[in-house]
């Protein structure tokens, strides 16, 4: 039963975050200072949940990102999956409990995510992406600030659900 609640909670958060990311926190309104809530959620799930949950939520989030970014499936689906494998694999070597380690993880996943998107877009024809290194760095720091706060909130809710 706890797994059911956890899954429901993750699905709810997924749709909440994607709604926020297409409206109030969309780069359309915030420019390069927008927090990538979707990436933050995937990082959180990779650190705190088992492989099955994590994989499902990552696939769903990647799909939703592709859907709302021009309905071209592939770029975010693949890049988010790679992020999930990298982070969930790292949990065997790193103990993501301190804010420093979580912040570092968020910084790294942002950089990796953009690097992957750049690689994938170069492989796809007619896919032109517009971003600069400065934009990526700005977003990394925004992700750290917002991510640490969201991690705490999600931890709190997750603990309640697990009880």
């Amino acid at each position: 039963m706890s797994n059911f609640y956890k899954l429901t909670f993750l699905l709810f958060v997924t749709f909440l975050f994607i709604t926020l990311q297409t409206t109030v926190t969309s780069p359309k309104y915030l420019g390069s200072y927008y927090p990538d809530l979707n990436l933050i959620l995937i990082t959180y799930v990779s650190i705190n949940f088992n492989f099955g949950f994590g994989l499902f939520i990552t696939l769903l989030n990647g799909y939703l990102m592709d859907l709302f970014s021009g309905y071209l499936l592939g770029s975010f689906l693949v890049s988010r999956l790679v992020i999930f494998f990298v982070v969930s694999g790292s949990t065997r070597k790193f103990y993501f409990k301190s804010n420093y380690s979580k912040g570092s993880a968020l910084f790294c996943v942002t950089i990796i995510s953009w690097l992957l998107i750049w690689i994938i877009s170069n492989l796809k024809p007619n896919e032109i992406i517009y971003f600069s290194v400065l934009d990526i760095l700005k977003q990394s720091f925004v992700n750290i600030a917002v991510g640490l706060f969201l991690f705490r909130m999600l931890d709190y809710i997750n603990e309640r659900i697990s009880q």
Partner: protein
Amino acid sequence: MGLLNKRTILLAVVLFFVSIQLFSNKLERNKMRDPLSEVVLTITYYPQMFVNYVTGEAVGVWNRYAALYKVNNENEMLRMEINKLKEEKHYLLEAKLQNSRLKQLLELKSNTSYPVVAANVIGGSPSSMRNEVVIIDKGKNEGVEVGMPVAINNGIVGRVLLAGDKSSEVMLITDPISSIDAYVLRNRARGIVKGGGEGCVMEYIESLSDVEVGDQIISSGKDGFYPKGVTVGKVTEVISDGGLVKALLEPLVNLNSLEEVVVILKSNSIVLNE
């Protein structure tokens, strides 16, 4: 006989007559100087002035406090009223601007031969990687289908990429995978307008065609998506591209601040001959 002894009676009578005399002198010569009175008056002036000053100040402070309190209250009320009026003014201005936009949309509605449905932009892309996408609040329930063109009064905005029951995703003309078969209005030089992120590029224009900066570009209708004759943009630069010419376009519509749009309910069909 203590009170009535002769000495006492005599003294009382003398004093009585002296005072009568002084009084009568005063009455006769009212301008007569009285040095003693003057001195007394002078001596009492300074303390009187001091007391008058102190009481005046005290009364003044009280009066000012009372007045300030009243003024402060009035000020607060006026401040609240100003804030309320400012808010009202803001709403009225917004309503006026929206009214103007909707009037322009209605004008477009009456000008096109296809039925149209007005829609509001309710969201954008969640990523800065591909942000040439908006979400509108009309979908299949209102007759919107994939591929239908979206415009505002000034020109083409994009086309429907994905239609749900209640909302749809619209790909803007600045998206790299967008392409529109178009003409130069002035001389009918034909080309393909493709999205370029910030603006658009019209490619495959013959080098002999006389395209100039400022030329208006309109849709030809031959791609089957966009109706004929709708404005796409204005030429901002002309570049040679081998044997052909490329024209950089600025959309007439500001795609970063879309609020209301119109979906032209035109089903897709490829027009071979026109």
